[in-house]
């Protein structure tokens, strides 16, 4: 191999390294899972939200147990779930910070809390929303596929995001290879 070829290969490798860094939230190993695994609810969250929030976590816990062991704690932990006014009824349901450690549910929404029945057409399913936001906690970005839990737009009364699609699971595995 000529010296010129070696130099060109080196250039390509450096560019590739730069491109690899562009994958937002890509896990490179280390202590990331243990950083993620404690979550708690702030005082703004009513006690009757508990079942739906737990189910939203379990959606991911059940498929990522080798990597992530979500543990609910009281007082304080790594991930805070809170309720706050965002933009009234409609518009935003919930959001997760770029630091992946704070989930805010809009106080302006009518939330469907019952995990044993499906929501009506005038309420937002908390289980579904928690499942989506916990995907962000795991560093997943939005999906372009409308059936995915990580698709960002859905209607009042929708509950399909309660269940992860194969693509959701594939995307999670892609962030945490080897899990």
């Amino acid at each position, binding site marked *: 191999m000529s010296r010129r070829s070696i130099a060109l290969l080196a*250039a390509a490798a450096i560019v590739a390294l730069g491109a690899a860094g562009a994958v937002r939230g890509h896990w490179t190993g280390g202590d990331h899972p243990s950083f993620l695994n404690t979550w708690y609810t702030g005082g703004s969250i009513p006690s009757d939200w508990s079942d739906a929030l737990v189910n939203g976590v379990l959606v991911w816990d059940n498929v990522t147990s080798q990597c992530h062991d979500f543990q609910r704690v009281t007082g304080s932990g790594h991930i805070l779930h809170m309720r706050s006014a965002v933009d009234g009824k409609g518009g935003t349901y*919930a959001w997760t910070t770029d630091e992946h450690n704070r989930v805010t549910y809009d106080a302006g929404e009518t939330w469907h809390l019952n995990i044993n029945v499906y929501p009506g057409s005038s309420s937002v399913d908390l289980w579904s929303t928690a499942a989506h936001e916990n995907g962000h906690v795991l560093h997943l970005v939005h999906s372009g596929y409308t059936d995915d839990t990580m698709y960002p737009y859905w209607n009042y009364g929708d509950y399909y995001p309660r269940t992860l699609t194969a693509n959701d699971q594939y995307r999670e595995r892609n962030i945490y290879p080897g899990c």
Partner: protein
Amino acid sequence: MKQKRLLWLGGVALAVGAATVSAVIVIPADGTGAYPTGNADRAQQLGRSSGLLPLPAGSPQVNGGDATVERVSLDQAIERSSVVFIGVPVARGGSEEVTAAGAVEPGVPAMTAHRVRFEIRKMLRGDDASAIDLMILDISHDFDKFILGSKYVVFAEWRELGESRTPGLVPTGYYQGSFKFANENADVAENPVNGTLDVRELEKKLKEGR
């Protein structure tokens, strides 16, 4: 000579690599480049003639996180938007607090929003104006993908933002409520979620009150 050429190639490689790495740091998720604040003079001039508040100084904190949003179809946007216009974003203001730090939970930072000032080309619904400020919550990578200088059809509605209940005109359904023209003379505008929009058809619908 060969050594010089190799050194030159190595330099190019390092520069390209460094440029790529630095692009990773500054380019936001939508790939439009670092968020520019735009033409401050033009924004001020438009604000004076339209009675808008001056845009706060500083850069907007555009990338706050990721949000889940109500699905709003084009028909729903037409039905419920109190303001519809064709316009060009000329500037962004700095972030403004809509929920104070610690207001809801101890230690939680403030929630903010920023304004995007549009020069109006045509009002399709709502009072005539030469400029309009859209208020954009800094909570999602998807909320402000506006490219300054490009032309859009925007559907907008009033909402109360944050714990302060600050009134703000926001795109209806956020990202779903703005359609970008491919160029200045196009009659069709596009939105990745809601598809294409023929502006002549839209005007006809709005005139008919649909």
